């Protein structure tokens, strides 16, 4: 498979060069030349006004895809409790399975956690494969990859979704290499091409500056890790019924090469950015570490939590757990207050689904204002204290507004 130029047709207009996301087209002697950087995305094909570019289908290997049916969701658990992202995967997996008219199966590995298995049915799974083994209580790459690999070989699912957690991003690639199939990381959107039973996996590319839709046409299962916080959670239905199949995998101590000898939970409070209804975020405009004190004050006043841009985390003003954006967390709170954040695309990618966005920035041309509902141009060190004061007096202010409108 490769992108080719029909030299005779090319008029050298350069339309393909400007549209190419990979910077892979050179114009030499008024003819487009496709270089090795080409990722075969086909953007140039649609753009070419004289139909001089085409995609040459290559001879890819693969499997008999008709043998594969069903949508699987990896039900990641820690300390016996499945994570929030599992509910999100079940919500999304349910939609995909319905569209493909097939079954949704949750795959749960653990030790003595039957209740969690039953809960997965109530959140939308038709079936739960529950691998119960003492060596599966705590995640290990070797143990989990072996058990899930065996299950995939035996039951042949067509799609497998995994949460893009620190564990999901360890398991996913290991499994995809073992199975010999494609894996698309950190997807933010999933669609289905029903006719070809293909999963269309969309993810940020080039550091979040572009989105790319990825296919895995000839290999199965089509695997995807999905960013926590992006998909909508499945709702619980207490009356839902389904099948829980308990399997006892063959697993020996010696199968696990990288052994977990200690698990430590951080005593720092977890920053639950994905769950927070209100987030106040600080950016480079804070000027320094101490600026986050002000952000904290405002967050506390609003009953929200503190977020941060990549620049502030890279400068070590605040911990990475606060980071919002492409390489941080994806959030969709009711209110997002961006203070001193210019609005790089990688940041916007992580917060633009917020219901209401407020931007405070010195620079009236900052891109953040393009996604904001309300903007204040000014020095955040002046605006935020005023804002806190206004919040303190909110009742009086509202009374005054009411009185004014009644006049």
């Amino acid at each position, binding site marked *: 498979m490769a992108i080719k130029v029909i030299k005779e047709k090319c008029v050298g207009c350069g339309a393909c060069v400007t*549209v190419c*996301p990979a*910077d892979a087209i050179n114009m030499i002697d008024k003819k487009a030349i496709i270089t*090795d*950087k080409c*990722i*075969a995305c*086909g*953007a140039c094909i649609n753009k070419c006004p004289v139909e001089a570019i085409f995609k040459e289908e290559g001879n890819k*290997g*693969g499997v008999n895809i008709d043998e594969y049916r069903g949508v699987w969701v990896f039900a990641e658990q820690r300390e016996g409790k499945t994570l929030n992202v599992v509910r999100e995967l079940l919500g999304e997996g349910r939609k995909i399975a319905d569209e493909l008219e097939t079954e949704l199966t949750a795959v749960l590995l653990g030790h003595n956690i039957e209740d969690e298995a039953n809960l997965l049915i109530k959140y939308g799974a038709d079936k739960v494969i529950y691998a119960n083994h003492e060596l599966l209580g*705590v*995640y290990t*790459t070797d143990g989990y990859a072996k058990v899930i690999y065996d299950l995939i070989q035996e039951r042949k699912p067509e799609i497998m979704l995994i949460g893009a957690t*620190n*564990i999901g*991003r*360890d398991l*996913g*690639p*290991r499994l*995809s*290499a073992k199975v*010999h199939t*494609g*894996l698309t*990381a950190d997807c933010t959107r999933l669609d289905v091409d029903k006719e070809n039973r293909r999963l*269309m996996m969309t993810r940020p590319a080039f*550091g*979040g500056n*572009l989105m*790319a*839709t*990825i*296919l895995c*046409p000839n290999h199965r299962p089509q695997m995807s890790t999905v960013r926590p916080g992006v998909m909508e959670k499945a709702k619980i239905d207490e009356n839902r019924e389904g099948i829980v199949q308990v399997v006892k995998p063959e697993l020996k101590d010696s199968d696990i090469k*990288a052994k977990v*000898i200690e*698990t430590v939970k*951080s005593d720092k409070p977890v920053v639950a950015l994905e769950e927070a209804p*209100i987030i106040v975020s600080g950016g480079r405009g804070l000027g320094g570490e101490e600026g986050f004190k002000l952000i904290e004050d405002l967050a506390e006043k609003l009953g929200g939590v503190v977020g941060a841009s*990549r620049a502030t985390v*890279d400068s070590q003003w605040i911990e990475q*757990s606060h980071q919002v954006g492409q390489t941080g967390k994806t959030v969709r709170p009711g*209110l997002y207050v961006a203070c001193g954040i210019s609005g790089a695309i*990688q940041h916007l990618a992580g917060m633009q689904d917020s219901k209401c*966005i407020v931007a405070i920035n010195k620079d009236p041309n900052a891109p953040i204002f*393009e*996604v904001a*509902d309300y*903007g*204040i141009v*000014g020095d955040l060190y*002046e*605006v935020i204290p*005023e*804002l806190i*004061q206004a919040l303190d007096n*909110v009742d009086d*202010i509202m009374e005054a507004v009411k009185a004014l409108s009644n006049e």
Partner: protein
Amino acid sequence: MKIIVCLKQVPDTNEVKIDPVKGTLIREGVPSIINPDDRNALEEALRIKDEHPDTLVTVVSMGPPQADVALKEALAMGADDAILLSDRAFAGSDTWATSTAIAGALDKIGDYDIIFCGRQAIDGDTAQVGPQIAEHLGIPQITYVEQLDIEEGKVIARRALEDGYYVVECETPVLLTAIKELNEPRYPSIKGIYKAYREEDRVKVWSANDYDVDRENIGLDGSPTEVNKSFTPPGRDSACEMLEGNSKEASRDLVVRLKERKII
């Protein structure tokens, strides 16, 4: 001990700008750098070498011929050998095909105790190539390493989780992926730079013919995934209301609007 560090040359995505009119990437003048997490991986290998001087650190990269700049920088930082995997046959590889191509080369180098990668590259953010190399080579992996101890024939690593960490013990050979919490990378020394650039042929270049790799499993055709399309992210449908006046007035206006919309 023998350590192989895999590193990638990437465009500094912090420097990537978007053309506000056309909505396309502006790439001119964007510098190429050693991927940040890979730099932590290299630093850790060099620290082990500092402590155990008989350690041999080999750096490997896959990329176009000009990626040798990244490898020369690694040599200047203190690596012993550098190999660049460069061949048109690798072009268009997804993570599966990339890891296959790299694993083949590592197999040829052989006899390694530790393979070190960065957790993920900033131009793709997939974090997939490391674990996939480990699987292709049939060795265990520990990802997200934030602290590392080396003992006779084994490693003890702290692997980071969102809410804590696991301490993982593993016999060598093992593949590790580094995160930035692991260490503070050093700068190349003047002497190192001098040596890396003065001596010719410090970076060996291998093509797909120089080692054993199945042609069907590399490049575009060897990639299970393909890009269907790429596009600039859709903007948010909002017209921003700018709140005028001084800070006090604007703040009051904002609070009123949020209250009226029942957002606070």
